[in-house]
């Protein structure tokens, strides 16, 4: 069984304007030691989904199951989730500039993480471990810098500190929510390298939330493409890039900068409101292949007879290679 098995996850929020259906029936598996990339544009529900699983969303209506190592995270109480967070599930977030507490030294913040789950570790031992972790993520002169405040580090260095903290207790799963979005391109590659190195060393599974297909190409084993709170397509990495089926996936790839073209091809239009979603395919309004059938919601079905590759689109599922080329 997979390390994390999410089935039919639904998350909605009641707002004065109506019910926002942020996640609508999300299912995915994360295998131990593997990287699952969750791709989609802003508001597609990718962050909400992972924060709900870890108990960090407040005031939401949640249904579905999310089995992590035998525990259903959706029905688990806050105390259980709290013990899992940090110890079993590490998290890093988009903006390293605001993700560390500005008024505490980074060493203190890592030590707090270590001792939150095991008070038998002495402060000295935790501090020593923190220095080792900082060295591990490539912070030079870690023993000295451990007493610096976050504002004394650059963005890339702060994200390394976040990774060191998230990996401090050797979690089975690391959730990285747009870990490189706020960083310079050159720094992005370094941070991804650190993550990959630690993954190999510790055998950590990673859920990588991103809208950057370049990062996906770099890191992912499996890919889930989300749109308007639902899965459009799921496939192993190679299939997403070379044998994709869903027009939304194709649109995402076409909007990537490529050396051969001088202009980007954007997807026309904007995502639908999550309060009043269309009855049929949520992407229909922006899709160049739209036809009558699209007014009914398309189910997620296998592409080319491969159960690892599924697409939620009414287009014939055997012509994918013709479409992709």
């Amino acid at each position, binding site marked *: 069984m997979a390390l994390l098995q999410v089935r039919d996850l639904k998350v909605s929020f009641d707002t004065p304007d109506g019910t926002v259906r942020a996640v609508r029936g999300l299912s995915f598996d994360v295998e131990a030691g593997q990287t699952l990339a969750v791709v989609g544009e802003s508001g597609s529900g990718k962050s909400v989904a992972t924060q709900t699983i870890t108990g*960090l969303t407040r005031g939401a209506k949640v249904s579905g199951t999310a089995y992590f190592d035998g525990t259903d995270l959706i029905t688990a109480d806050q105390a259980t989730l709290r013990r899992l967070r940090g110890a079993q599930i590490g*998290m890093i977030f988009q903006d390293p500039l*605001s*993700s560390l507490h*500005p*008024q505490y030294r980074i060493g203190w913040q890592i030590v707090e993480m270590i001792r*939150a789950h095991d008070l038998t570790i002495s402060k000295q031992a935790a501090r020593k471990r923190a220095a080792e972790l900082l060295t591990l993520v490539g912070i030079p002169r870690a023993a000295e810098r451990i007493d610096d405040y976050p504002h004394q580090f650059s963005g890339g260095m702060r994200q390394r500190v976040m990774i060191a*903290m998230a990996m401090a207790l050797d979690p089975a799963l690391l959730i990285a929510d747009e870990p490189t979005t706020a960083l310079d391109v050159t720094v992005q590659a370094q941070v991804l390298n650190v993550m990959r190195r630690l993954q190999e060393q510790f055998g950590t599974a990673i859920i990588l939330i991103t809208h950057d297909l370049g990062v996906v190409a770099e890191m992912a084993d499996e890919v889930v493409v989300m749109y308007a709170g639902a899965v459009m397509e799921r496939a192993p990495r190679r299939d997403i890039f070379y044998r994709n089926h869903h027009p939304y996936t194709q649109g995402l790839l076409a909007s990537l900068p490529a050396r051969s073209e001088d202009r980007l091809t954007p997807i026309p239009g904007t995502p639908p409101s999550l309060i009043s979603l269309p009855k049929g395919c949520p992407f229909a309004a922006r899709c160049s292949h739209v036809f009558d059938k699209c007014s009914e919601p398309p189910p997620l079905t296998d592409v080319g007879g491969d159960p690892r590759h599924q697409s939620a689109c009414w287009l014939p599922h055997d012509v994918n290679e013709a479409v992709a080329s």
Partner: protein
Amino acid sequence: MAMFLIRRIGHGILVLWLISVAVFALFFVAPSNVAQTLAGRQGTPETIALIKHRLGLDLPVWQQYLHFLGNAVKGNLGYDYYHQVPVTHIIGQALPITVSLALGAAVLWLALGVFNGVISATHPRSLADRGLTLFALFFYSFPSFLLGLLLLYFLYFRLTLSGFGWFPAGGYAPLAGGIGPWFQHLLLPWVALALLLAATYTRLTRGSMLDVLGEDYIRTARSKGIRESRVVVVHGLRSALTPVVTQFGIDLGQLIGGVVVTETVFSLPGLGQTAVTAINQQDLPVIIGIVLFASAAVVVANILVDIGYAVLDPRVRLH
């Protein structure tokens, strides 16, 4: 840091000098009859002239001012017109009373305001939040003299009539005479002052705390699996306290200069009441002395707030 202190103290002295000029000017714009009052109803013009001469009131204003300034620099704020008591002595007598009142009330209002603010912020829009907000606004908009009088009516008058003489009608008992009577005399004034100010602190803490709890680093703290109470206090309150400390310094600085209404209602002979009496008697040296002292308290409080700011937030550098 040294540069910062030198600059700020320099600014402070400039402010105090301007205030002394302003108070002096104001006093001489208004008609004065100090000498007349001192001479009594039957005072002859000669007596009045003599008194004026003794007090230096017959000199040109600028000479009077220079005389005052010369003494003030040496730490002598002059003598009151009526009993020739040194102004520094008058301030020295009244200050412990005002400080006792302000500090005691500060402990109460900080505890009340910060606690209520945190409860409100961690349970936004809940019944507790609404109740505490109502409580805060009620006392905030309550006239402070009326609150004092109501406390006196119920907790002194009615209680004493019923045979429970727990609280005195007012006045002050020095700390030197034992902590019990001191506490007894100050409890009602503390409550009256604290309820008034707690409202500001409840709202300030609530707002600041709500902002902070929405910060990314609070999400990080939760993602670390630490207890929610620790997230709120160690991570949240730590950041949220910065504006509270600023406000606290400014408020305390102002109160040290005299708490006019509360001191008057509870007959506490602190700086506020002394200043009111001095104004009624046109006792210029006492007025100037207290105004300068109160201004100095505000100036010092502001410098301390800025230093506190740098202590609380490592990103702030003083220069």
